[in-house]
């Protein structure tokens, strides 16, 4: 008997709108490696960020190539080692005008950051161009309900030095994207507001009419404004379009991989002044996996802790904020413990991705997750020999089993960003600008 094949067009005929649907098993080809019509299974991309760097001689493996061994700080990745590429020896090439700002902007975008002239006000900076996750979102996030998600765990961010240190995702210098710190709220945003459209309730139709008029107001206003403000209203208009898409979206279809939990109760409230980092990051990781499995989004940024972050790693017995610890030469042992803890939380995410079936493999087979920080080592604000992990197979684009790839000539970290973008299907010719510009991929981690 011929297997039943559903075409996406069949499903959408009734709805009359172009919206993304999750990967129904019935829509795959017989080998489960692509859609029946020949389109490949979508790739996913995320940046996973933590503040204040690593202890390089306890993080970086000695051997290069496929035979690399887990170091103390990479040890938590033992269950997913084959999916992890370690990259070392690369250098941030944007101008090193200010520690932490340079690393964060460099590793997340490749664009020189813009220092906001203080004139007697506190020093601040903004990103000089879009962060790499937003470049990915523009390429592969246009057909999902949410173009991208911004997730955060620790609330102890540095908010006094401008958007560069406070936010991970930037659509441009004036467009930082705020993070969601509350897993329960993220769950509501992703799932609970979905209800099958009721044709008798005019509410959604009226909401769309209102948004149309608001858009007209914005366009009318734009004509009177200067360049910078017009760009801000362009962002406003784009946001309205995205909201309209969400209002019109169908709820996700339940599959073996896309099974939303009944309720998420974790709200990221401190207990006794102590952040619940493990519980929050686990909840967030599970939600990200679910959001990808249900194809609600394909791109995310995950800020475990912030640049120059004051996160206190109480779970490993610490009482001082991490940034302070990194600048105390006597406390590097505690810094190490914190780095191990962070990598264990990263491993949790990768393991959950690996456990989520997709086609003949799993989600991690179709993902590219970039782990990075705002400096190499916090003690010295270094930007050479930058610690980077590129995890996932990206549908076969990345090397598997993963290798330790080292540059011996201080190559540009933006090479790695370029490879990540191309790995997930964003066919850009280059990444970044000026010193951070790269049109040269990191072939060492490409399959």
């Amino acid at each position, binding site marked *: 008997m011929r297997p039943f094949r559903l075409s996406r067009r069949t499903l959408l005929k009734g709805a009359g709108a172009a919206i993304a649907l999750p990967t129904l098993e019935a829509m795959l080809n017989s080998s489960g490696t692509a859609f029946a019509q020949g389109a490949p299974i979508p790739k996913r991309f995320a940046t996973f960020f933590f503040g204040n760097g690593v202890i390089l001689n306890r993080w970086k493996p000695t051997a290069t190539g496929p035979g690399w061994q887990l170091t103390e700080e990479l040890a938590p990745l033992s269950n997913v080692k084959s999916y992890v590429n370690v990259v070392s020896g690369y250098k941030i090439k944007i101008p090193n005008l200010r520690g932490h700002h340079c690393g964060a902007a460099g590793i997340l975008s490749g664009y020189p950051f813009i220092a906001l002239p203080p004139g007697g*006000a506190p020093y*601040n900076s903004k990103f000089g161009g879009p962060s790499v996750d937003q470049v990915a979102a523009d390429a592969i996030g246009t057909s999902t309900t949410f173009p991208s998600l911004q997730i955060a765990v620790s609330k102890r961010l540095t908010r006094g030095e401008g958007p560069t240190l406070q936010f991970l995702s930037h*659509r441009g210098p004036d467009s930082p994207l*705020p993070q969601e710190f509350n897993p329960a709220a993220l769950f509501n945003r992703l799932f609970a507001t979905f209800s099958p459209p009721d044709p008798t309730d005019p509410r959604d139709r009226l909401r769309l009419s*209102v948004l149309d008029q608001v858009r007209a107001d914005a366009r009318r206003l734009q004509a009177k404004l*200067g360049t910078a*403000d017009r760009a801000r209203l362009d962002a406003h208009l784009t946001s309205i379009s995205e909201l309209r898409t969400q209002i019109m979206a169908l709820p996700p279809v339940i599959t073996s991989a896309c099974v939303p939990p009944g309720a998420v109760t974790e709200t990221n409230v401190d207990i006794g002044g102590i952040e619940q980092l493990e519980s929050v990051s686990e909840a967030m990781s599970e939600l990200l996996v679910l959001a990808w499995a249900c194809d609600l989004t394909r791109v995310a940024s995950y800020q475990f802790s912030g640049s120059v972050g004051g996160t206190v790693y109480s779970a490993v017995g610490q009482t*001082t904020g991490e940034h302070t610890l990194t600048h105390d030469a006597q406390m590097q042992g505690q810094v190490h413990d914190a780095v191990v803890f962070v990598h264990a939380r990263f491993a949790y995410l990768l393991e959950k991705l690996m456990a989520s079936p997709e086609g003949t493999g799993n989600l991690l087979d179709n993902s590219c997750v970039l782990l990075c920080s705002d400096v190499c080592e916090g003690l*010295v604000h270094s930007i050479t020999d930058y610690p980077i992990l590129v995890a996932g197979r990206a549908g076969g684009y990345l090397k598997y089993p993963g290798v330790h790839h080292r540059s011996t000539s201080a190559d540009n970290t933006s090479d790695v960003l370029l490879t990540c973008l191309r790995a997930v299907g964003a066919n850009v010719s280059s990444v970044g600008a000026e010193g951070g510009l790269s049109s040269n991929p990191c072939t060492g981690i490409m399959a």
Partner: protein
Amino acid sequence: MRRSQATKVAGIKAILRRVGRLLFNLPHVAVYLPGGAPIVKRPLARPTWLVCLALVAATVSGCFGRSEERAFLNNVLPPQGPPDTTVVQRPFEPAPLTMRVLLSWQYRNAVRDLLGAAPAALVTPPPDTTVNGLDAIGAAQLALSQTAITLYEQSALRAARAAMTDAATRSQLVGCAPQSTADQACLSQFVGRFGRLAWRRALADDERAAYVALGVQAATAYNDFYQGAAFAAAGLLQSPNFIYQVEIGRPDPDEASRFKLTGYEIGTRLAFFLTGTTPKDDLLAAAEAGELDTAEGVRARAAAMANDSGAQETTSRFFDEMLQLRDLSQMAKDPATYPMYSAALAAAMREETQRLLQNVIWDQDGDFRQVLDADYTFVNADLASLYGLSDPPPSGFARAPLPSDGRRGGILGQAAFLSLMAHPNSSSPTFRGKFVREKLLCQTIPAPPPDVDTNLPNTTGMTTREKLLAHRQNPSCAGCHALMDDIGLGLENFDGLGRYRTTESGQPIDASASLDSLGNFAGARELGGLLRRDERVTQCFARNLFRAATGHVDTEGESTPIDKIHAGFAGSGYRVKQLLVEIAASDAFRYAAKGVTP
């Protein structure tokens, strides 16, 4: 000897390379689209060059020692004392205008005044983002994200629905009795009146017609007039004309080189700056009558509005920002070092500082500088215990005198500042000194040198002063740390929670310190006394309030009107109510750089 010279030469070369790169990279600011193509290259204004050069020079000099640093600072920063009137003052160059998102609490207050307190309680505007120290500056630069737009939509729908389903208040809100389900005339009357208040200007005929059409559509769909009014109101509240303070200006009829803000725009600025909410009907009428087109008209209005209770809320929120009091609710303190710390104590700390400010600024209408070294404060039982004061109030807060021979006094002796500018388990002279420099003196501390190495000898068992002295033996750190630590070390009698102590690690604390050329001090009250005599402090305060009022960091081109604002502030005996009026009546508040000509 030769090797250290060679190292020094190599160091100089490295610095010159960095300086060269800095100068090469700074001349333009480029905004990039995804894909790398720049769309805007704005040349930095000359004053910005000066500041960047200043920063570079400061960084360079920071590597070579303290004396060059001080000499440099004295040359670049504004001189102390009254302005030299024999010097020709710099001609006024107004700053450009940008759209300014309403701050979250202004949004809530506006909805309260437009729809009522119950609907306003339902709104969830997006959180504000601080840039250069103030939310108002972030609001004038940053674009709204999709999350923000969604929150505005939800807020508008909830608030409008709550207002229009409340039978007791909705007929007064609408202002006419509907004669039919989709009574166009009544809807039109409502949209015109409500729209003018919401958008802070009269609606054009086609704008009004468009929202009436929305109202008709909704009323018909639900067969309910008030659902129609709700959707029309929700739409008006989602429009950029509500969400942003739109500031465009028009060509100044008296001066071709600049723009002037319109009456509506001035009225809106006055309302949000002085009362934290949307302009009321009479203020809009004053704008329409041309009252706000003259400096005298603006001054008179501002003087009246400064007595509004809204002015107390806006200044209170300003201090929450400037003194970082908002961070108290998230402050991390080690329970082992400070077992008495709790969220309630943190809240009390904020209340104490706000009460002192309230007392000086509003109850006394007195000299603002008293907050620097006041010999009294306001405590509840927890704070009285923290400070070791006798006679704690049985409940709530009460005014308490501070020991006359004690080191506590003014806001720098209060637990809020002392705890915030500290570590989770210890004090921090560096943070405290940095705060005084940046927030009270408007001085910028240069960046740490790239590849800074904080490798130090073992410091166990040392006092904080001894640990920091070890820091300052490293010449690349000493220049900047001297600026901060010299001040903070004078506050070492106060631990990381603001408690008074005379020993640390079993050793007596030496809290002797100095503040530039102003003199020596020990403790918060003496530091406050020195700051009180320093005009930079009141100038910096005036500049910060000006920034909050206008949404941008004051430029060199605005230095003349800002000097005038400060002179008015000083002349009034440093009364904050007068400072509010001076800012509002200033040319820098009412004029702008040329924009897009309509």
